[in-house]
C-alpha cells in the first residue's frame, strides 16, 4: 500500500482528496428561525456550504419559532433571504428547490413539552427519509433568557442524548450571560443536560481568517516566537473599533455596554491567542487549555486599577463618514441620562514569565473614526542608538500589526535609510495582505464556524472556563463603574473620533501613543 494508506472506517475515496475535512450527514435545527441571524447569516451560510459541496446531500434544516408557518412559507422566506444576503444575490430556482426539499419548519413554543416531543418525531422521520444518521446540531439563536429552557426541553425530550455512532451538538449564540453569576448559572443549567464536549459557545470573531492565522503566524514560523515576550516587546495594543452606533439596538445595548458586548468575549478571545503559550498540539482542548491558562494569569482589576488603568466613554453627537450622527443618549431606546459605556480602554497585565510587566492596552468602542480590529505589537527600541537623535527623530519603534478587519493582513514596520548622500532614516512598512498574496475570497465567519461544529472541531468555540474567566475579569470594572458614576461625565467623546481624551492620556502617561489605525 502506498503513502496514502486507508485507515479503518475511513472513506477510501476521501483519501488523498485535497479537501481537508468532510462533514457527516446531519440535521441543523435552528431555534429562532424567524429571526434576523437565521436570514442574514445562518441559512445563507448553510446554502453556500452545500453549494461548495462541503455538506452532503443527506442534510436537512429544521426551523423553529413561535410564528405559525408552513414548510413552504418558510422555504420561500429563506429563499428570499439567501437572494438578499448571499454574495451572488441570485439563486437558481431548480437548485434552490433541491436544497429546499431538506428544509422544514415547525411552530414551536419553547415552554411546550409536547412541541419538543413532536420535534423528536420529526427528526426521526428526517433520519429515515434523508439518511441524516441521527446527527443533530441545535442552534440556539433565540433571546438569551431562553437558552437554559431550550436545552432543558431538549434534555427532557431525550434529544440531547446521541444514538450510538451519532452526535448531538448545541451552538449557543452570544451573549453568554450578562455577568459572572448569570454565566455560571447558565453553564450549570445547560450542563445538567449536555456534556461540555457537546456545547459550542459561538464567538464569530474566532471564525475570521486572520484570527485563525494568529496560530499559524505564531507557531508555524520560527522567527517570531523567540521575540514574543517581555525581553523584546514593549507593549501590545488591541483595537476593536466600530464606526457604527447602536443601530436600533439601543434597548439591548443599554443593559450591556461595550465591556459586556465586546470585551469580555471577542476581545478577550483574540487577546488570549496573542498571549498564550504554544499548545502541545492543535487539538481543540490543547489550544483552549493554553488560552485559559494565560487568562488565568491576567492581573485582576482592583478598584485602584480600574481608576488608574481603565477609561470609559460614551459618544455624543458628531459625524461619521461626513454625515452628522446623534449622540448615544439620543439613540432610540436609550435613556437620556444613560451611563452605559460605548467605549472602554483596559490595561491588562499577565503575571507570568513571558509577559511580566508588559502592558496590553485594549480599546473597543462604537462610533469611532473607522471600523478596524487590529493587534499592534510594539517592540522595544534598539538597546543602543548608533544614529544621532536628530536622525532618529522620525523613527518609531518597530511594530508588528496584525489586522483582523477589514483588509486582513500583517504589517511589519521597521526603519530604513532613505537613499542619498545624507544619512536619513525613515519608517517603512513590509506588508502582507491576504488579498494580495492569496487573491482569494475569505470565507464568511459563520460558514467556517458552522462547518467546524458539524465536523466536531470546537477549537474556535469558547469553553465554559473561558466564558466564566472573561466575566470574572470584567466584573470588578463594571461594579466599580456602577458605584462611581460621578467620576466621569457622559458624553465624553464626539462621534467619529478615537474616543475620550483620557484614553490617549492613559497611554501617553506611559510614554507611548495609540497607533493611528
Amino acid at each position, binding site marked *: 500500500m*502506498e*503513502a*496514502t494508506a*486507508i485507515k479503518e472506517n475511513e*472513506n*477510501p*475515496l*476521501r*483519501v*488523498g*482528496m*485535497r*479537501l481537508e475535512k*468532510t*462533514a*457527516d*450527514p446531519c440535521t441543523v435545527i435552528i431555534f429562532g428561525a424567524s429571526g434576523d441571524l437565521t436570514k442574514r447569516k445562518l441559512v445563507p451560510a448553510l446554502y453556500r456550504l*452545500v*453549494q461548495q*459541496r462541503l455538506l*452532503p*446531500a*443527506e442534510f436537512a434544516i429544521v426551523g423553529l419559532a413561535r410564528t405559525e408557518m408552513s414548510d413552504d412559507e418558510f422555504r420561500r422566506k429563506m429563499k428570499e433571504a439567501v437572494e438578499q444576503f448571499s454574495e451572488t444575490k441570485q439563486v*437558481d430556482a*431548480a*437548485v434552490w*428547490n*433541491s*436544497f429546499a*426539499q431538506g428544509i422544514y419548519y415547525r411552530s414551536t413554543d419553547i415552554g411546550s413539552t409536547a412541541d419538543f416531543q413532536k420535534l423528536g418525531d420529526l427528526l426521526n422521520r428526517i433520519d429515515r*427519509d*434523508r*439518511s441524516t*444518521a441521527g446527527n443533530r446540531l441545535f442552534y440556539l439563536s433565540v433571546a438569551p433568557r431562553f437558552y437554559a429552557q431550550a436545552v432543558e426541553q431538549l434534555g427532557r425530550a431525550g434529544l440531547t442524548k446521541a444514538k450510538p*455512532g451519532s452526535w448531538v451538538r448545541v451552538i449557543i449564540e452570544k451573549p453568554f450571560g450578562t455577568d459572572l453569576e448569570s454565566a455560571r448559572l447558565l453553564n450549570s443549567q445547560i450542563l445538567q443536560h449536555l456534556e461540555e464536549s457537546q456545547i459550542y459557545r459561538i464567538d464569530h470573531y474566532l471564525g475570521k481568517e486572520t484570527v485563525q492565522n494568529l496560530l499559524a503566524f505564531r507557531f508555524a514560523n520560527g522567527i517570531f516566537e523567540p521575540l514574543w515576550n517581555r525581553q523584546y516587546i514593549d507593549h501590545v495594543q488591541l483595537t476593536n473599533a466600530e464606526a457604527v452606533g447602536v443601530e436600533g439596538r439601543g434597548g439591548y445595548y443599554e443593559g450591556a455596554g461595550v465591556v459586556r458586548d465586546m470585551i469580555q468575549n471577542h476581545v478577550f478571545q483574540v487577546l488570549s491567542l496573542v498571549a498564550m503559550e504554544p499548545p502541545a498540539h492543535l487539538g481543540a482542548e490543547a489550544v483552549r487549555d493554553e488560552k485559559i491558562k494565560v487568562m488565568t494569569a491576567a492581573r485582576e482589576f482592583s478598584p485602584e486599577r480600574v481608576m488608574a488603568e481603565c477609561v470609559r466613554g460614551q459618544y455624543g453627537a458628531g459625524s461619521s463618514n461626513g454625515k452628522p450622527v446623534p449622540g448615544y443618549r439620543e439613540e432610540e431606546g436609550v435613556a437620556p441620562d444613560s451611563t452605559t459605556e460605548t467605549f472602554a480602554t483596559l490595561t491588562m497585565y499577565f503575571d507570568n514569565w513571558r509577559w511580566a510587566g508588559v502592558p496590553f492596552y485594549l480599546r473597543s468602542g462604537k462610533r469611532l473614526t473607522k471600523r478596524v480590529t487590529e493587534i499592534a505589537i510594539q517592540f522595544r527600541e534598539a538597546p543602543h542608538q548608533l544614529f544621532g537623535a536628530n536622525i532618529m527623530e522620525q523613527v518609531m519603534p518597530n511594530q508588528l500589526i496584525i489586522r483582523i478587519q477589514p*483588509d486582513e493582513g500583517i504589517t511589519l514596520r521597521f526603519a530604513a535609510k532613505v537613499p542619498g548622500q545624507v544619512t536619513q532614516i525613515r519608517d517603512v512598512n513590509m*506588508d502582507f*495582505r491576504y*488579498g*494580495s*498574496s*492569496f*487573491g*482569494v475570497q475569505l470565507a464568511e465567519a459563520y460558514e467556517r464556524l458552522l462547518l467546524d461544529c458539524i465536523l466536531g472541531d470546537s477549537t474556535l468555540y469558547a469553553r465554559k472556563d473561558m466564558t466564566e474567566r472573561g466575566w470574572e475579569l470584567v466584573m470588578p470594572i463594571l461594579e466599580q463603574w456602577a458605584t462611581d458614576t460621578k467620576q466621569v461625565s457622559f458624553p465624553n467623546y464626539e462621534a467619529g473620533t478615537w474616543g475620550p481624551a483620557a484614553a490617549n492620556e492613559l497611554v501617553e502617561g506611559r510614554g507611548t501613543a495609540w497607533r493611528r489605525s
Partner: protein
Amino acid sequence: MRLETQVTELTASPSKGLDILKIEKQLTSMWSDAGTADSSHSGVTRACTINLIVYTTPADDATELDELLNRVTELHPGRTLILMVDRHAKEAKLDGYVSTRCRLLGATGKQICGEQVTIEASGATVDTVASAVAPLLVPDVPVYLWWKDIPHYQDKLFDRLAQTADRVVIDSSVFDHPQEDLLRLATMIENSRHALQVSDLTWGRLTVWRTLLASFWDVPDYRPLLSSIDTVDVNFAPPESAPDEIAPKALLLAGWLASRLDWALVDVKKNASGIEFKLNCGADPIVVAFRRGPAGKSSITSVKLSARGGAASFYVGLHSAGAKLQTEARIGADHSVGRLLTYERRSDAERLSSELAFPGRDRVYEAALRVVGAALRSLS
C-alpha cells in the same frame, strides 16, 4: 489590470544568448520607474509567491494567454517566465523582454505587481534556451512549469525544464491521441529518474465528480454497500479530435475508483459502445463500462455505481445541458436522496491557479494514472 509600464526589449542573439544581468537590471529599474509613475501615491507592491514557467507555441492564442495569466498572477503574484517556442522555424532566434502585471487592491488604490520575462526562441536555440531559464528564477519560491502542449517525451527542453521545476502542469484533455498519450505519460512518470511531479488540469476538472462520488460513502447508511459494487457505468463525450477514443477524464475517473478501492485489473475488452475494464475486488468481479456519447468537448456526462446487482445505485450526472449536477443515492425501490447543484465550471485560469496552490506530489493521481496505463497497455 495591467500597469502601463514599459515593455523593454532586450538585445539578445542566438550567438551571445540572453544577457541575464541586463534582464535583472531592467527589472530593477522597471520597479523604481513603476513607483515613480504611480500618480495615485498609493504605492506599488511587488509580490512574489511563485516562479511560473510557461511553455507556449505559435499555436497558442497570445491574447487569451495574456488574459489567463492576468488572472493567475492575481492569485499567485510572482515571476512569470514565458517561453514562446517555435520549433519549426528555420531561423535561429532568441529575444527577450520584461514587463509587469499589476492589479488594484480593493479601494485602497494600492497596486500589487508581479513581473514577467518573455523569451522567444526558435530554430536551433530551442535546445539551449532552458539554460537561460534557471538563472532567471527567483530563489526560495516554488517553480512551476506549465507545459501548454503535449509533453515532448525524450525532449531535451522538456526534460531540462521539468528537472528545474518542482511541479509540471499539463492538460491531458488536449492530447491529440488521448489513449496513446496517456499511456506515454503514465510510462514517463513511472520511469522518471527525478520523481517527476505532475499536475494534470483534467484531474483538477475531475475534483467535483470525485468529491460527489466520495460523499456517498460518508453516509453510514450507504457505507456497507461500498464493498458490494459490481458495475460502474461511465458515460462520456469523446474529444472531437479523436471521436473513437475514450476521454482522458473518463479513464482517470475509472483509474481513481480502481486504485482507491483496491480493484485489481483483470482484463480490458472492446465492445460496440466502447470498452470495458474487468476487475476483481477480492474474488468479486466488477465491470467498468465506458459508454460513448456524441463527440464534443472531452468530458464525462454521468457516472453510476451499482451494487448488489442493481439493488442500490449511486449516480452523479450532468443536468440542464451541463449547467448543473444531479446526484442520487437509491436503495431499493423506496429510498432515494439526491440533490441538484450548480456546476460552475472553473476557467482554465482558476484551474491552473488551484494547481499552483499545491506544491506536493499527488500520489492519488499517480495511482489512478498507473491503473489507466496498465489498462491501455493491455489494450494495445
